């Protein structure tokens, strides 16, 4: 049962990735990429990483994809609103993929890994995850937080408008 779910989710992840990479419109590509990331999150859950699956949805499919959407809306509002009424039934393929993903997620969550043994032979609870992380990799957490801080400063510097002080900047 879990092996079947693994192959279904793998096929869905590959299908949505290929659809994402072949879309001409970046917004459509981004929405397919969100479905691919959701499929990967379910694969994480299947492979015994429930906390990682939750963070995949929150961080990747939530924060990073919304950042992409912000930038696309900021830079190319024309392509975002282009040919909105071109095809009537193009919502059907993503809706089918989304409902399949939801069904797989429902089956996975309903399996109750703690009672029926383990899903994939290995199950790292959030408590064990946190203990392993802060016992052995506390320094790595600090370094990653510093990387995020540097990235935020660099992004702020790059995206600032230079029109006010163009003379002394050049």
């Amino acid at each position, binding site marked *: 049962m*879990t*092996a079947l779910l*693994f*192959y279904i989710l*793998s096929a869905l*992840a*590959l299908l949505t*990735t*290929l659809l*994402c*990479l072949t879309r001409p419109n*970046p917004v459509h*590509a*981004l929405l397919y*990429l969100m479905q*691919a*990331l959701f499929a*990967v999150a379910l*694969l*994480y859950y299947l*492979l*015994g*990483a429930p906390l*990682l699956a939750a*963070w*995949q949805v929150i*961080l*990747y499919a939530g*924060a*990073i994809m919304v*950042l*992409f959407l912000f*930038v*696309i809306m*900021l*830079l*190319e509002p024309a392509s975002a609103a282009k040919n909105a009424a071109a095809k009537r039934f193009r919502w059907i393929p993503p809706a089918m993929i989304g409902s399949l993903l939801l069904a797989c997620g429902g089956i996975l969550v309903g399996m109750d890994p703690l009672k029926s043994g383990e899903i*994939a*032979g*290995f199950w*790292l609870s959030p408590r*064990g*995850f946190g203990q*392993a992380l802060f016992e*052995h*990799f506390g320094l*790595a957490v600090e370094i*990653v*937080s510093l*990387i*995020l801080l540097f*990235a*935020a400063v*660099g*992004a*702020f*510097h*790059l*995206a600032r*408008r230079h029109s006010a002080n163009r003379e002394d900047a050049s």
Partner: protein
Amino acid sequence: MMVPLGHVVTLAGLLFTAGLLGVLLRRNLIMILIGVEIMLNAAGIVLVGASAYWRHPAGQLFALLLMPVAAAEVTVALALVIYLKRSRGTLDVNRFDGMKG
């Protein structure tokens, strides 16, 4: 582990190849960044699969550390995208040939 490790690695390899082809073949800068995201996700699948195979939490911890690194990369890259769009007025990478020999 019910799914063999080879199948997990194969899936990650296929996803990585798809992302790499997207990076190499698409000419829109945002689509290239999406390809990079797909490649990072494929790396995460390998890490979590290896963690389940050896029953050791280190793989999952590295997959966790992969996420903030990807977020930092996307932050800087999207700021560069905004900068390039403002200074050059386009996102087509074929137009950025200022260092062509």
